């Protein structure tokens, strides 16, 4: 089996929002809709304050509350763990949006464009009316994954088969891969580092893991750069 998973290394993320921009570029989301966003969190009170940049978005949960509540079956989960939305079935009731504990879902009631009412040339070309007035969210760039897998590529290793946000990350804070493959980059990162999942207590089983410290007991793990190079036969 395959379980596509995202790993975000909080030690590496610098909050540059390149992943956010790459997502908007890849998915042509309208203004105000950020399927991938990076939070700039300050925790604590002066003088004991810490800051972290936290990439968030759809967590592609094992038990997605958005899918359970959806009255139309528009939201589904694939066998590889990716949660999808059928825009032609969705009625835009927003029930999934209130059920999602990760604020990952969006609904834009009307088509909107970056520079007022009229679309720019690129927006005119890429605007998808099927996505207006229905729920939308991060898809893990499922089209790239499917196309890449069909071509024999490895998502998370081969850029053409990897989500745009992961490809764009300047510090390799984001990694993508198959959690069910113990040799995959994400499995090795998780094995070698201490990590958590957001709102774990809710039982949703998020497919998005956050690394926060190295796991000394694991004997150390190579950097993501080296893992990818190894997989590509470059190291």
């Amino acid at each position, binding site marked *: 089996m395959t379980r596509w998973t995202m790993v975000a*290394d*909080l*030690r590496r993320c610098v909050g540059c929002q390149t992943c956010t921009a790459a997502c908007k570029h890849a998915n042509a989301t309208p203004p105000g809709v950020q399927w991938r*966003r990076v*939070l700039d*969190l300050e*925790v604590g009170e002066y003088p004991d304050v*810490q800051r*972290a940049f*936290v990439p*968030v978005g759809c967590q592609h949960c094992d038990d997605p*509350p958005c*899918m*359970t*509540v*959806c*009255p*139309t*079956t*528009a939201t589904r989960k694939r066998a590889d763990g990716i949660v999808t939305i059928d825009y032609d*079935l*969705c*009625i*835009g*009731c*927003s*029930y999934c*949006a*209130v*059920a*999602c*504990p*990760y*604020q990952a879902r969006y*609904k834009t*009631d009307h088509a909107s464009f970056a520079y007022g009412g009229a679309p720019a040339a690129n927006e005119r070309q890429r605007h998808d009316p099927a996505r*207006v*007035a*229905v729920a939308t969210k991060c898809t893990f760039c499922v089209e790239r994954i499917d196309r890449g897998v069909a071509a024999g590529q490895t998502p998370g290793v081969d850029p053409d088969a990897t989500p745009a946000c992961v490809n764009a990350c300047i510090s390799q804070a984001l990694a993508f891969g198959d959690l069910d493959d113990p040799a995959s980059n994400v499995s090795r990162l998780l094995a070698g580092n*201490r990590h*958590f999942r*957001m*709102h*774990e207590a*809710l039982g*949703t089983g998020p497919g998005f893991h*956050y*690394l*926060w*410290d*190295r796991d000394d007991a694991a004997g150390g793990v190579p950097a993501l750069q080296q893992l990818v190079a190894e997989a590509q036969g470059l190291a």
Partner: protein
Amino acid sequence: MNYGPRPWVQQHWDLRAAANFTCGGAGAGLIAWTAAMALAGTSAAAGVPALLLAGLALVGIGLGCVALELGRPLRALNVFRNPRTSWMSREAIAATLLVAVTLVLAWGAGTAAAPAAATLAVVLALAFVWCQGRMLHAARGIPAWRSSATPALMAATALTEGAGLWWLTAPWHGQGTRAALAGFGVLIVLRLIAWLAHRRSVAAHRRVAAALAPAGVSLGALGTLAPLALIVVAAMLGDGAWGLALAALAGALAFGAGAAFKLALILRGSFNQGFAVERMPVRGTRA
């Protein structure tokens, strides 16, 4: 918009969705109470159809408001596609059956089929309000809704509001008995218990508790204590005009406070839980 660890009030469901829970719940409660009173022989037969239709109108207003919230209203029939897991689909099915059975009951009040239809109407109205409570309970992103006490609270509130509307119109439709008045009092107490359980379950979420506090105080004082006192006095006064007037006032208070609380629950207490970073990143060298 504040995206961070501090929760903020969800913006996806607004007054239109709240109207479904308020009007729909009260309407189903009115149908349930009216049908139950008809079964018990308490309700004057002449008033039954009008009360049932009033309940249906409220349910219809609620569903109509939801339709206004849909992004794609022309696909509304898709709402029936997922009864296997979605309480919204189940609510839609319950509502459809409730409308049909209530129309049959309103049309055939006093006929031989009326008792069976009334029983079915009570069951379907209960199913409808239960679905509404479970709908909120299934919204795992909203602590005030996902509380295990929410379904009971929503059901108790809906039934009490429905009974309240019935008593509000009692001077017009006939007389309720002391047993019916006692039943109304029991519903009010059950709602109080459900509210206390819900309040306890959300106490850890301080902003939620603070947002719901004013409506809770109103529910406790105006929606519980005052109606109970009025019910006691009305029962002592008997079936006269003053007794009915006090019972009607009790009904109005029980309905108003319940409706206000549900609006607060949907619109003001619906904080999400923000984003939680369980561990901050450990950067740099360590000693």
